[in-house]
Structures are given as C-alpha cells and as structure tokens.
C-alpha cells in the first residue's frame, strides 16, 4: 500500500497553483496519471522520486516512511527504491549501454543483475553501443533496464512512449506489462494516449489543477459510465465528411480505419484529431471462426 498525502505550491503555466494529493494506492499495479499539461503530473512524480520536496505532507510505501515533513524525514532519491524513466530517456551519452546499466548498480550488488536485465530487455547485441547510435525504441529499452538495475519497487514513467511510433509503442507496452509482472512493480505512468491507458493501467488518477478529479478504472473514466455498449473501442478521428443528412466519421482504431455514421450534432462537436469512444450494442454481430 502506498499512502501519499502531500501539498506543494507550484508555478503552473496558468499562474500559481497548489498540488494537493491525498490518496492510498494498492501496490503491484499500474496507475496512470492523466490530465492536461500543467495539471501537476510530472510534479507528482518528482515529489515521489524525492527530486522535489513538497511544502508539507507524507509518503509511506509499504509502511516505510519516505517523507514526513512534520518529523523532518525526507529520504534521498537513492534511498527510496524507485526507478524513473523520463520522456527523453536521459541516458548518459558518454557511456555504452552496458556502462549505463553498470553505473546504476549499487556498490554491494552483484553484476549478474545486469546480464539478466540485458537479456530480458533484448539488448544483448547492443550492449557495447553508445546511446546516440540507438533508435528511439532501443533507447527506451535501455532506459527501462537502467531504471530496474536497483531493483526498485516503484517505477515512475513520465510519458515514456510519447516519442515512439505506433508499432514500437505497442511492442514496448507489452514489454512494460511483462516487466511489471516479472518484478512485481508498482508503476506510475504519465500518459495521454487513451488506448495506452486502457491497455496498461489498472487505475487512472485524473488530475486537474493539482487535484485528483477522479480515481477509477480506465473504463469508468473514459466511458463516463452511462454507456451499456458491449463493444467499445477508443480511437482518433481521422476525417469528418458530410454526406446528405448524415456525417461519415473516419476513426483510427489501433491501425484500422473504421467508418461510422453520426448525426449532425455529434459531428458538430468533433474535429479531426479528437479522441473518441466508439461503442455498439452487440445485437447482431457476425462471429466467424479463424
């Protein structure tokens, strides 16, 4: 169980705001932190990592106190059992892949951990390369592996997949799920991608202006509870075309383009690039064995 009760005044993009989080979170699951930019997502991760000290509050992880401003306890980032992967991966350009991992190895820990991680993240053939010569997806894997060298209980991922293309994202999403199971991690993931959130997270923490607006499952958050559809997919509006009295909406779901007919009011509220939920009551589906 992770218990976070913190408050911190921040200078957000829309002027000063207060990050105020008060929540208990089950261990060994993936929690996505979702919200507009400037809602306090990255700040929350930094507070958890110990890179930013809140004005007041406490953080307890499995009954170990990481932070308690009242009794002046504030563990250093290195003592908190966390791994962190940032959007730009933050690999050390002067070190090879293996050296990046070795740098993270605590003094008393054995080097076997590194061989294991290199194997698990499929970096065997790249271990002597410098980060600059790797692709985005490969750098991402190095960053993940490096974050796991210290065997953390909590992994903080700040939009780790946003710089990658779609097929690489899917692959790495699976990777993250595997690693979560293998290392029994609690993962805090900052993400905007609805599909990714559905795929990865057990819970979503929806932040707005520094406060938790909702804490629920992805389904509850994005379907707003009132749909009883049996099929539902999330996608992105690729095109909107007027056709007589109806509108044809082209939606990109995963890698498929799906055409959906909508009425004028619905079409009026949408524009290309919007994230939408496409749902249908399954009264007449075609089922075919493949």
């Amino acid at each position, binding site marked *: 169980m992770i218990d976070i009760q913190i408050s911190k005044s921040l200078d957000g993009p829309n002027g000063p705001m207060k990050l105020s989080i008060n929540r208990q979170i089950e261990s060994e699951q993936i929690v996505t932190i979702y919200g507009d930019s400037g809602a306090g997502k990255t700040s929350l991760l930094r507070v958890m990592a110990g890179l930013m000290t809140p004005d007041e509050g406490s953080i307890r992880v499995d009954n170990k106190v990481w932070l308690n401003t009242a009794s002046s306890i504030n563990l250093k*980032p290195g003592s908190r059992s966390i791994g962190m992967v940032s959007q730009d991966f933050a690999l050390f350009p002067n070190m090879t892949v293996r050296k990046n991992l070795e740098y993270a190895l605590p003094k008393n820990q054995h080097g076997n951990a590194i061989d294991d991680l290199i194997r698990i993240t499929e970096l065997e053939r790249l271990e002597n390369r410098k980060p600059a010569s790797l692709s985005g997806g490969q750098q991402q894997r190095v960053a993940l592996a490096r974050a796991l060298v210290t065997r953390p209980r909590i992994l903080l991922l700040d939009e780790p997949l946003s710089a990658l293309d779609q097929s690489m994202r899917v692959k790495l999403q699976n990777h993250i799920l595997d690693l979560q199971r293998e290392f029994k991690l609690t993962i805090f993931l900052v993400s905007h991608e609805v599909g990714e959130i559905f795929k990865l997270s057990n819970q979503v923490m929806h932040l707005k202006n520094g406060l938790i607006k909702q804490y629920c499952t992805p389904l509850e958050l994005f379907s707003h509870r009132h749909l009883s559809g049996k099929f539902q997919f999330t996608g992105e509006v690729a095109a909107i075309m007027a056709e007589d009295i109806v509108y044809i909406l082209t939606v990109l779901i995963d890698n498929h383009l799906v055409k959906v007919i909508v009425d004028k009011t619905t079409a009026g509220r949408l524009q290309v690039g919007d994230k939408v939920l496409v749902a249908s009551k399954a009264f007449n589906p075609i089922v075919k064995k493949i």
Partner: protein
Amino acid sequence: MDWSPIILTLKLATVTTLVLLVISIPISKWLAFGNSRIKPIIETLVSMPLVLPPTVLGFYLLLAFSPDSFVGQLLDDWFGIRLAFSFTGLVIASVVYSLPFMVHPIQSGLSGLPTSMMDASRVIGKSYLTTLLKVELPNIKPSILTGIVLSFAHTVGEFGVVLMIGGSIPDQTRVASIAIYDEVEALNYGTAHQYALVLILLAFLVLLVVYLVNGRYINRFWR
C-alpha cells in the same frame, strides 16, 4: 635569442590554466544551477575582466600585493610570501584576469545538459559529486577543451596586468609580451621580431589544433 621569456610565458599559461580548471568547475556548476540571490553579483564579478582595462586590475592587485597593504602584510607575516613582482603573484593575477574565459564555456556547457540526466543519476542513488564527475563533466568535454584553450591563449597574450604587477624581472616575470615591449623600447627590432613571430606561430598552432579536433565548439562559444 634568449628563450627564457617564451618558456616563462608557457609556464605561466600552463600553471594558470591548471589552477583555473580546478577552481572554475565548482564556480561554473554553482552559476549554472544555483539560484542564490547573490548569483548575479558573482556572475558580474567573474565577467568584469572582460570589460575592465587590464591596467585597472593590475593597479589594484599591485596595491593589494604590496607589503605595505593589509593583505600583503598578512601574507608576508604569516606565510612569508611576497606577491608583487613574483611569479606566484603573476599566476594569481592571471587566474583572476582569465577567469571568465574558463568559467563561461564550462558554465554554458553544464547548463546545456538536460536536467533529466542529472535527475536520473540522483534517482539511481548517486551523490552530486559522483554525478558531476561521472556524468556531467564527461559530457561537456568540448566545453572544457574550449575553456582550457581560451584561458591558455588569453594568458599567453596578457600584457597590461603583467606589466603592472610583475615588471620585467628575467625568469621571474619577464614574459614574452613584456620582452617584446622592452626590446622595441631599446630599438632591438630584430629580437622583438623573433619573440613576436614565435608567439604568432604558437597562437596559430594551438588554435589550429583545436579547430581540427573540435572546431565547431569554439565557434559556438564565440557566436
């Protein structure tokens, strides 16, 4: 030709550069990442030698170093050091005078590094010092090289400060630039030519090597 002024010049530039390298790294780190209120003042002081006539700096250092002054007396009484008209005094003056040439490139190199890199090192559990030595400095080698070359070259080219506090004592303070001045005053144009040509050649070679190795970084600094 008497080579001692040239050798003295190179010695002064080498010692000055080494001292500068050691003291500039913490100063640059503090200037790049600190957010103290007095930071603008320190930043200004570091940059002052860029705009002040060297004679101004030399004049006040001379007063400070003189055995009659408080500082000079203190050094003389406690350590038996007399800085005015000595090589050590020249080194101290050169360090002050060339400080911005070492601090600025290193500072801009450090502040150009993504903070996420330092965060990553901190989260892994490394101290600030380890992060500085193992991550930050190795990734700003071009800036460090720029700082070294600029400070070295600037110290070789020093004249005003040396003249004020060093005078022209052979093997002590008579560096090449002073020697040229002396020779011209004595109308020994031939010897002056020799010293001058050696300096031109030296400057050309040093800069050429740097441009060949790492030219674009120097360009970035001057642009």
